[in-house]
């Protein structure tokens, strides 16, 4: 595991698994990257100069007992107005330079005009999962955000309108943009425009309770064709296939599952937990932290605390037969 991690970092393959701020794939992340290069350059230069002087001073001016004047005190210098002035003015100039460069990026990111082709997504943070809905497309999903790739020549960014249903959260996908907090009773906005197709990882970045660590984000930047296909699939109502999953569907719809979860087109209209209409189309469950396999799904429904102790979904205490049936039903919700 050690070698694999080292290899991942050292290799220049920054696609899957990378959340480095130095591998920007969208305009906000790119502009922050450029600014950060300037800032790092300036601070590194300051470090070299000042640390260099410090190092020189402690070497050159160390007390050596062998010196002829070792027992005498050195000349006492109390100060110098010119020197004080110089090392006041020069830092002020550096501050002005940095400030102007920074303001430019703040304004360009936060005041960016919204193009007509932008996609609107509403993000609601919950303990401990992400609710994503596309109001103009009639789609509600959870934890895995599909957005179109944005061509710089004809930008199709995604505008996120964000709030929280409970405590503070923060949406952070480093390769695409800086983070923005989700605050209850407040609307925040940000935009993303991934310029290459692929999967971008992130996670909640504001401590929100017990399972803050497992509130992961998966952003799928799809090509226009793939995105259209995904939208079409998501807009369909829940798969209503016949037996053998009818038993599972019946159990699901007659138990408390429906008070927290929604399956579009059925009696399940709960809003407290993630929307499950297209659960089987997702790669992960438990907010990105567990691969979506039948075995994992079964184990999660049986006892969510096994994967995420402190998750707000209670253990359902279904018997083995019912558990199998419900799992089979959920697996059909593509």
């Amino acid at each position: 595991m050690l070698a694999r991690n080292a290899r991942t970092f050292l290799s220049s393959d920054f696609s899957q698994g990378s959340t480095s701020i130095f591998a920007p794939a969208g305009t906000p992340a790119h502009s922050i990257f450029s600014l950060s290069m300037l800032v790092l350059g300036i601070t590194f230069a300051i470090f070299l100069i000042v640390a260099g002087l410090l190092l020189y001073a402690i070497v050159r001016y160390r007390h050596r007992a062998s010196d002829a004047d070792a027992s005498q005190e050195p000349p006492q210098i109390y100060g110098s107005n010119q020197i004080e002035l110089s090392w006041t003015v020069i830092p002020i100039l550096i501050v002005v330079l940095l400030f102007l460069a920074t303001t430019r990026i703040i304004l360009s990111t936060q005041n960016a005009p919204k193009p007509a082709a932008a996609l609107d997504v509403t993000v609601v943070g919950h303990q401990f999962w992400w609710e994503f809905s596309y109001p103009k497309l009639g789609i509600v999903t959870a934890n895995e955000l599909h957005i179109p790739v944005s061509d710089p020549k004809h930008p199709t960014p995604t505008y996120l309108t964000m709030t929280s249903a409970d405590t503070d959260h923060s949406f952070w996908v480093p390769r695409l943009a800086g983070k923005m907090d989700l605050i209850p009773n407040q609307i925040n906005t940000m935009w993303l425009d991934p310029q290459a197709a692929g999967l971008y990882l992130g996670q909640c970045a504001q401590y929100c309770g017990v399972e803050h660590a497992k509130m992961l984000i998966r952003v799928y930047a799809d090509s226009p064709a793939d995105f259209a296909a995904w939208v079409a699939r998501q807009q369909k109502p829940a798969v209503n296939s016949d037996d053998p999953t009818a038993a599972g569907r019946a159990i699901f719809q007659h138990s408390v599952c429906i008070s927290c979860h929604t399956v579009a087109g059925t009696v399940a209209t709960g809003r407290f937990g993630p929307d499950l209409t297209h659960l089987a189309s997702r790669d992960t469950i438990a907010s990105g932290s567990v691969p979506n396999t039948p075995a994992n799904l079964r184990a999660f429904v049986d006892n969510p605390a096994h994967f995420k102790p402190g998750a707000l979904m209670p253990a359902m205490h279904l018997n083995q037969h019912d558990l199998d049936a419900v799992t089979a039903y959920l697996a059909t919700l593509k």
Partner: protein
Amino acid sequence: MATQTPAPADTNQISGLVTYSAPRRLVLDVLHDWVTTVDHKKIGLMYIGYALVFLVIGGFEALLMRIQLAIPNNHFVSPQTFNSLFTMHGTTMVFFVGMPILFGFGNYLVPLMIGARDMAFPRLNAFSFWISAFGGFLLYFSYFGASGLYGAGGAPDVGWFAYAPLTARVFSPGHSTDYWTLAILLSGIGSIGTAINIVATTLCMRCPGMKLSRMPLLVWLYLVTSSLVFVAVSPLTAAQIMLMLDRYAGSHFFDTQAGGSAVLWMHFFWIFGHPEVYILVLPAFAFANEIIPVFSRKAIFGYPAMVAASVGIGFISLSVWAHHMFTVGLGPGANTFFTLATMVISVPTGIKLFNWLATLWGGKIHFTASMMFAIGFLFQFLIAGLTGIMLSVAPFDWQLGNSYFVVAHFHYVLVGAILFMIFSAFYYWYPKMTGRMLSERLGKWHFWIFLIGFHLTFDFMHVPGLLGMPRRIYTYEADRGWMIWNLIVSSGAVFQAAGALLFVYNLVWSYFKGPIAGPDPWDAWTLEWSTPSPPPAYNFAVIPTVESRRPLWDLKHPDDPDSNYE
């Protein structure tokens, strides 16, 4: 302690007095003496001892967290335990290590350095100590209050900054959050009391001739720090009263369901929180201002500029708080303003660093253990300041805020700058406080071991932040590429623990076996070095009169006194 240590017969020549050995006393008498004392020196030592105990406890909490984070998906502690650990670690280190140890040194040194016999309000001094101490016990009682006695709640797990609405009753049932609130409320009262004392002492009890412009820089810095305490700790007190009203009286200050604002808590907390970190760092600057000149054998360079810079830092620190809130959605106007204010504070801070450099320049540097820690402070504070400038750039903070880069930055300040200067202060003033020198040999071992551990942990901790690792997570995914860095970071913790234990051993061993110090082991220049070590209860047999910033320099160099250069 003055009564227990037999004073050597002839080293005390102040006004011709000679101290005799005191007869041994009953333990109960000694205890009673300490519990009822109003002597600033004893209170100072109690603050310092108390803080050292909590330093070890807080360090242990850090060690547990680093073991949990060394590898991904670890199960060393549960998520609930981990969340309590980082809450308790932060709260302990800030309120029950940082504040007490800095007030302890201030209590001990300020009256001595201005030629006074005690603080302005000795009984308030004792009250402030005991109420702060009780706060610390209350915080840790939360561990017992859990499943132990009444099942009332357990240790707080809301983070040391306790954001609303996570702290509302609905999201934090039980009493764990209340332990946090009340413990800090009490500690805050103690801090305000001590701050009142320091300001009143400094303004009203200086010895004749000690104009404000002749005060040691340490006293200036404690004056600024204490003034900051009034205007910074009070907002936290107010916010905590509001939080308690929300939790128990049904008010809606931070109740987002009723239209309350989560961001308002953040504003109130950080209006306290940012000046708080300056309250913690200014005393470290105070120590540096005294120690670096003595071991460079030169007067501090630019005394007036240092005073102006310190006061400037105090004022500007009140205007930068929302750089902790760049990602909250305040809007480009606010983000721009707070970026500017935060960058501006780097100017007076830089001035101080350059003045220390100029003090070293042309001097004759003695590498005692104390000075080595001070030099470590200089390099490390430079780095910490530079990463702070990086974080002041709001867009950069949008990536790095709430990540391990921030954790690395503030630990660089708290450990690399403040704790290093505290170690330096110990090696420098322990002889005055106890009459014995700390072992220089052990001190140098302490320095190197701790230095290695510090850099292993906190240099490499910047990397996971740059790679996208957020704070306050009890574990992380294996595919993020964070493991190797976390492993290195965790390994450094072991070295730091070893260094700290060596230090504690040195403190205890030297008390009994260290070489006798005498009144002025470092050939220094401020008034505390004119008293015996340790000083008698009354400090000075006769209140001195001073004519310059370095009264002892004037005495030792009558041909070239400082008073010629004022």
